């Protein structure tokens, strides 16, 4: 019986909610995996902050063009209908409300939608990139994450303890155990692993899980 979803399975679940025709930005790293699980028959146009719309998969080794990369500085290819633009236009797409979905990772998400995902605090070199921009503007700001930290502490919390990326910005959280919407500053439980009771899920969640409507089974294929 599944005790928790793998990262690939979390990415698969998030991908199912991306509608046909959506303009989507996937954060660097784990969120990039969502593209692999786009349901058959849906067209999704990916935006990357460095100035490309409608990029495709990585090229075969040896065919990289280092002027054609994504925000993670990995080589990509172009789909028919792709376009290039400068950075101010790229972030106009972000902040101007033109993106349908942004998917990011998280250190912590608070019940009011605050997100912490850029800094683990003093002692390291701070680096923010486009995360603070991406959380403002996309119609849906989704987080994909393990439900708890490596030490087993909740990542869904009452109030973030780490430096914030944005205030009240997250719409939906896809975790290794559940799918949770943020509505009126509360965590509203939408789906959970069938093997887990609500009480067990609440025990590893740092703020109240509100039940408002049906709670579905979070069932994801092996991927």
């Amino acid at each position, binding site marked *: 019986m599944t005790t928790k979803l793998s990262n690939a399975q979390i990415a698969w679940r998030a991908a199912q909610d991306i509608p046909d025709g959506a303009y989507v930005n996937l954060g660097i790293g784990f969120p990039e995996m969502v593209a692999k699980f786009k349901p058959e028959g849906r067209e999704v146009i990916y935006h*990357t*902050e*460095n*100035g*490309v719309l409608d990029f495709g998969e990585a090229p075969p080794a040896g065919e*990289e*063009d*280092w*002027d*054609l*990369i994504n925000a993670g*500085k990995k080589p990509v290819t172009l789909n028919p209908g792709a376009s*290039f*633009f*400068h*950075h*101010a236009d*790229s*972030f106009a797409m*972000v*902040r101007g409300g033109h993106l349908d979905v942004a998917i990011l990772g998280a250190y912590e998400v608070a019940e009011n939608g*605050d997100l912490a995902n850029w*800094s683990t605090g003093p002692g390291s*070199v*701070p*680096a*923010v*990139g*486009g*995360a*603070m*921009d991406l959380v*403002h*503007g996309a119609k849906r700001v989704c987080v994909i994450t393990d439900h708890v930290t490596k030490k087993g502490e909740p990542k869904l919390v009452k109030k973030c303890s780490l*430096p*914030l*990326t*944005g*205030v009240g910005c997250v719409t939906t959280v896809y975790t290794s155990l559940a799918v949770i919407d943020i509505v009126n500053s509360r965590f509203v439980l939408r789906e959970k692993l069938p093997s887990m009771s609500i009480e067990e899920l609440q025990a590893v969640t740092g703020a109240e899980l509100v039940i408002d409507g049906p709670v579905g089974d979070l069932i994801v294929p092996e991927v």
Partner: protein
Amino acid sequence: MNKVYPGIEDALADIQDGMSVMIGGFGGSGAPIELIHTLIDRYRKTGSPGNLTVINNNAGNGAVGIAAMIYAGMVKKMVCSFPRSSDPKAFTDKYLAGEIELELVPQGTLAERIRAGGAGIPAFYTPTSYGTLVAEGKPVAEFDGRMYVQERWLKADVAIIKAELADTKGNLTYNKAARNFSPLMAMAAKLTIVQARKIVPAGGIDPEHVITPGIFVDRIVEVSDPKQEEVLLREGVQA
């Protein structure tokens, strides 16, 4: 009018100690490697230009480009959004030792500050960074029920950028995602110096295809076979 310089050294001659320098590129794409390394060569020979404030999205990777400038000791301060890379040692060591300053700016805010600098807009409001450490000390205001942070324009003494084609009047095109910050930086600097893969006569670029109009460009040099930062890194170029 002829903006074409025969040599890179001459084109860069007016870059002096203490200047602010915008450098085009996002990671290696669009990085004007030949301009940067000619500047480093001059610094190693003459001790100038040092004490520079460098504006770029990143803070160098490996030992090439901006990382090489940092290793050489020319950079006093970085203004950037993401001073991490696959090999960020050049910046990280100096930053943790307190030998280089950092002004961290969210990426979209960095782009818009540069655009504003070039467009004569001294400040603007953005939702980005509201309620975060990055917004501390900055004025905030409410518009239509939402909170925004005031950010100021960003200008520089010099911009050095890489283009694909330039015509003799300074009109530019770029190659794919190498465009990134360069059209903005060309607007925001007092002196914009361009390395182009090919220089064509005026009229050699269809006006419909010009990305940066020549009014934003002062000097052009042709570098017909430009090095890619990423390729140099993979070849293991050392400081």
